[in-house]
């Protein structure tokens, strides 16, 4: 769909796909640089740092992302509050919204499962159980993320007339 067609439908297009991609790349690089700098300055033990650090970074990003998601999809009066099929299809014509939801999905899955990992670490389990649970969480994360992406692609590739 062309940009003028999206504007004609009256759908808000927060960012173009290229801009979103570029911003995400810049953000990732900044996170890695910040993490390495904090790691170097604090001179701390290697294990568990990235889990701790990324949990906070994803939390801060999720504050903004979830506010937008909740306002536009769940708790706002008016036409944007609708979650039914036709309205979702209209909204996912915009690559900006698709990119936004892709990033949101990755952040939520990582933050949630990393949080579960943090709880499990507190139980001081054996090395073998730790290893098994860690692999299970990674697997669950990939499956959730994969299903989520598939759903997004499904919505994005449907046309306005539905099935």
């Amino acid at each position, binding site marked *: 769909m062309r940009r003028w067609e999206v504007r004609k439908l009256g759908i808000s297009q927060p960012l173009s796909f290229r801009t979103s991609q570029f911003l995400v790349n810049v953000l990732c690089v900044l996170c890695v640089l910040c993490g390495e700098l904090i790691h170097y300055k604090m001179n701390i033990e290697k294990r568990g740092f990235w889990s701790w650090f990324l949990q906070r970074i994803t939390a801060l990003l999720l504050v903004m992302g979830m506010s937008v998601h909740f306002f536009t999809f769940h*708790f706002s009066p008016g036409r944007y509050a609708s979650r039914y*099929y036709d309205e979702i299809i209209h909204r996912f014509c915009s690559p900006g919204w698709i990119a936004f939801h892709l990033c949101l999905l990755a952040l939520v899955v990582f933050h949630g499962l990393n949080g*579960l990992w943090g*709880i499990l670490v507190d139980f001081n389990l054996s090395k073998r159980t730790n290893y098994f649970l860690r692999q299970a969480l990674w697997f669950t994360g990939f499956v959730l993320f994969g*299903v989520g992406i598939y*759903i997004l692609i*499904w919505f994005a590739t449907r046309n306005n007339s*539905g099935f």
Partner: protein
Amino acid sequence: MNIQKLKEGFEDLIKNRNPGMLSFWIHRVTGVAVTVFLFLHIFTLSSVFRGKDAYDYAISKFDTTSGYIFQYVLLLAVAVHLLNGIRITVVDFWGLTRIQKKLLWISLLVFLVIAAVGVKTVLL
């Protein structure tokens, strides 16, 4: 041994009457609850693979009275977790451990505002 640890954890919660301990437990419980909801959310959205009608039917389950109450509880859980998480992140990165209690009261105040606004936008 793990059940023992859970028991000790609950005993800590009851005996250690400290707002920090309560906020720690609420943060954990809401975090686990919202993660479980994530699974339900993706499962609900995956009904789109069975067709438009199946998807609209699944979404219509959230447009009932119990659905609105469920969404309101979800809003409260996310708000609590979000505000407490901001407090924890601010304390971690800026070392503001001395004013943790003040930050907790501020986040409680913001939570009450969100809860009040949520009554209007979700329940009514």
